[in-house]
């Protein structure tokens, strides 16, 4: 039972990130992180900024950073639609850090035309990418 696998597809608007049979997947739901195993009932949820961990067998797992999207479970398999997804090994930490610094600066300067939700979202994304990259 533990080793039963199911079909997983992770897509972004730009490309297919992952497709294959997995035994489990962890994802950052808006109401908390969750894990899915084979045989789950149909389920639809929103994902928050966070990390997705894909487990193909009990020994190997792969980690990716995402900025949120939709997670859908059907009888036939799981589809994850996210706007961005990056494997931990492919994250450009330098770029993430400069994005982080930029967002912090913007929030600190607090200019009158500052788009606060956007800056905060950028901050959360950058922090998440750095965290995921260091968890490799």
């Amino acid at each position, binding site marked *: 039972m533990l080793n039963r696998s199911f079909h997983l597809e992770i*897509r*972004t*608007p*730009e*490309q*297919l990130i992952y497709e294959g049979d997995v035994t489990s997947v962890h994802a950052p*739901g*808006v*109401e908390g992180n969750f894990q899915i195993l084979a045989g789950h*009932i*149909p*389920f*639809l*949820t*929103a994902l928050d900024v966070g990390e997705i961990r894909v487990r193909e067998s009990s020994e190997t797992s792969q980690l990716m950073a995402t900025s949120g*999207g*939709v997670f*859908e479970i*059907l009888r036939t398999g799981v*589809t994850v*639609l996210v*706007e*961005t997804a990056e494997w931990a090994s492919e994250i450009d930490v330098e770029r993430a850090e400069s994005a982080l610094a930029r967002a912090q600066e913007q929030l600190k300067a607090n200019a009158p035309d500052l*788009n606060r939700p*956007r800056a905060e979202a950028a901050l959360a994304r950058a922090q998440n990418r750095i965290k995921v990259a260091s968890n490799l």
Partner: protein
Amino acid sequence: MATLREIRRRIASIKNIEQVTDAMRVVAAARLRRAQENIIATRPYADKLNMVLGHLISQMDVENEALTHPLLETREIKHACIVSVSADRGLCGSFNSNLIRTTTQRIEHYQESGADVTLICIGRRGHEHFVRRGYDITDSYINIFRQLEFQTAVDVVHEFEHLYTDKKIDKVEVIYNNFKSAILQTVLVEQLLPLEPEIPEGDELFLDYIYEPGQAELFEMLLGKHLNMQMWKVLLDSNAAEQAARMAAMENATQKAKELIDELILQRNRARQTQITTEISEIVSGAAALEGKR
């Protein structure tokens, strides 16, 4: 009549131009192929997203929950926003001029009905045109086509979505060149906001799902994603159309250059023949003169 040397020089320079336009055609063709691949790559995501959204809407209808959302709200149009998608570069036939013409007509249409219009310009060409003429521009995105990123679409959507929910604008339209095929591009005007969700049909949509969080929250999030996706599609489409237009324009230019060269070669031969004839007749008459003296 031009001298032989002048004709030769013109032939050489037109050959150079031909090489350049032909190289540009090849580059545009390669970019077009990549742009088309990008369009195809988004399709599964878009289809899936539409399916999920459609399913959700059909479920909400079933439960008689009214579809209300700030982005669905129709208001009297006092302030309109037009997202005008041009290219960053020229040399692509009537691509930019068609787009600018349609945008201007659209602006006039709104102004006649008493609404003011603000622009979001994507692409340098449109931006420069409208800045020079003093139009009201909320924001411009320049040099984004070289390296198209999904984030750009998200940023653009964020820009007007924000204005819409704050009721600073009452309608958002996008004007762009639609990629019909490699030889046909048409300028399209599409409404982005208020959103008009299609109520889907079909039985397979009625799946028994568990939702988390509730339907309303999910619906809101999906609408945002849907809007991002629409904007992304527009950018990809315009990019493909631009490359196709440039390819056709460069193809024509190369063809014209070839014709011109052929014509000039004829002229050159004629000029050369005249020159030889003159030379021979000079020699002959010179020789004849010498003969006569003896």
